[in-house]
């Protein structure tokens, strides 16, 4: 931590969302209080994400690592300003990041929203897709049911990581 007594509130606000502050063991009491402040905010963001997508988050963390949550934390001070509340900001930043890097995983997030009644209908396609990376309903349902099956048992990360997700193929009924 490099905050000085003369620093501005804006600088302190930005510094609070640096992940180095939550992963570096603090030495002094002052550093510990600042670390607690940073961790408190990180946990708040994680709480919003885990509440909305409890099953998909565990799968994504097992596949990509926990840095998918840390990335939201790192972007919170700069990209959060377009949202109205903390929940929208945490979930919006996370979803946009997933869409950008892996549209398949974004479909899983949307499907979990659909299953939890947050969307009137899911946005996935209902027809046989030409695109290799588009999930069809049967796939999504099977994948999500597996994630619930694992999630309710707090399955270890390795089970998620070994779960083969091959969209449009793995669970498709051969007609």
């Amino acid at each position: 931590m490099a905050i000085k007594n003369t620093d501005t509130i804006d600088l302190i606000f930005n510094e609070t969302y640096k992940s180095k502050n939550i992963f570096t063991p603090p030495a002094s009491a002052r550093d510990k209080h600042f670390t607690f402040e940073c961790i408190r905010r990180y946990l708040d963001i994680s709480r919003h994400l885990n509440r909305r997508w409890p099953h998909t988050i565990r799968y994504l963390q097992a596949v990509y690592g926990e840095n998918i949550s840390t990335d939201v934390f790192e972007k919170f001070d700069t990209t959060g300003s377009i949202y109205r509340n903390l929940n929208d900001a945490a979930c919006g930043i996370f979803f946009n990041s997933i869409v950008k890097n892996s549209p398949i995983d974004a479909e899983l997030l949307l499907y979990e929203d659909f299953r939890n009644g947050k969307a009137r209908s899911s946005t996935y396609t209902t027809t046989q897709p030409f695109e290799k990376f588009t999930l069809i309903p049967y796939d999504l349902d099977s994948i999500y049911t597996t994630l619930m099956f694992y999630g309710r048992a707090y399955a270890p990360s390795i089970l998620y990581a070994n779960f083969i997700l091959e969209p449009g193929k793995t669970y498709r009924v051969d007609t």
Partner: protein
Amino acid sequence: MDINSISLGVSGDINKLKQFIHLYTNSTSIYHGTPIKHFSLGVRPWDRLENSTIDLCATADFTISVHPVDINFSGVIDMTDLASLKKIIDVLPISYIEEDIGIWRNGNLFLGAHQTNPPLNKKSLHTTITNAKMVNHFFELPIFLENPPVYSEFGSIPFWDFYLELCNRSDCSMAFDIGHYLGYCKSKDLAFNIPDTKHEIWSLIKTLHISGIKSWMWNGIPVWLDQHSDPFNNELIDAFKPTLAKAYNAQNILLEMEGSSIEVERNNIDLVKKSIAEVSENGNKKY
């Protein structure tokens, strides 16, 4: 101040205000027979009040203050939001506006639990004074500046020097939040300590805020969280009594209990009443 005549207040949003109006006149409610005579209304810039609520407030025999959570007293203030707040404030018989200093908003984002307290240094003192003067002039209402929740503390100006200069130079008063100050003390590894009775700040403290907090040890340091729904604990009440004995200019004591159950509200009110009686019986001497 005659401690026995000090009023108590509760806080909440527009829905809570409507509930409060109903309960206030109900002889079976938890507010009946208590000295609760004040409501602190939490408003957002887009909130709108029904005409029936406005009419009931106009003739109410309790006082009303407004506690927005969108004014960045220590940062950049959105004048459009301020104008929207004024539209709501202008239709109610508001006694004063109370707001934590620091930053509440980052662009459109309401920071809530990520509200950031200002470092106690000259730069943030200057910014907060400038903004407080402007807001005071804009609303043409008394402004009570509140010490915000503090989980980590920066700057080198002592707490009481900072708030005294802030109030004196901005022509504002202070809303002293006891739990938030406990948090400040924890962040500085200090015991709870308030100035003696002769300190000028007591003339500027116009309201005391008290709310639930969670305190525990984390990595060898005392930490805490603001938790308005929690019952008032012993640590808080132990800090409240000596504060009450010194706050001779306070108009009311605001019990911030958003989200708490009826039982918690009832117990908190009883606890504060007993504390007031204890301070009064001791003639302030004990504290």
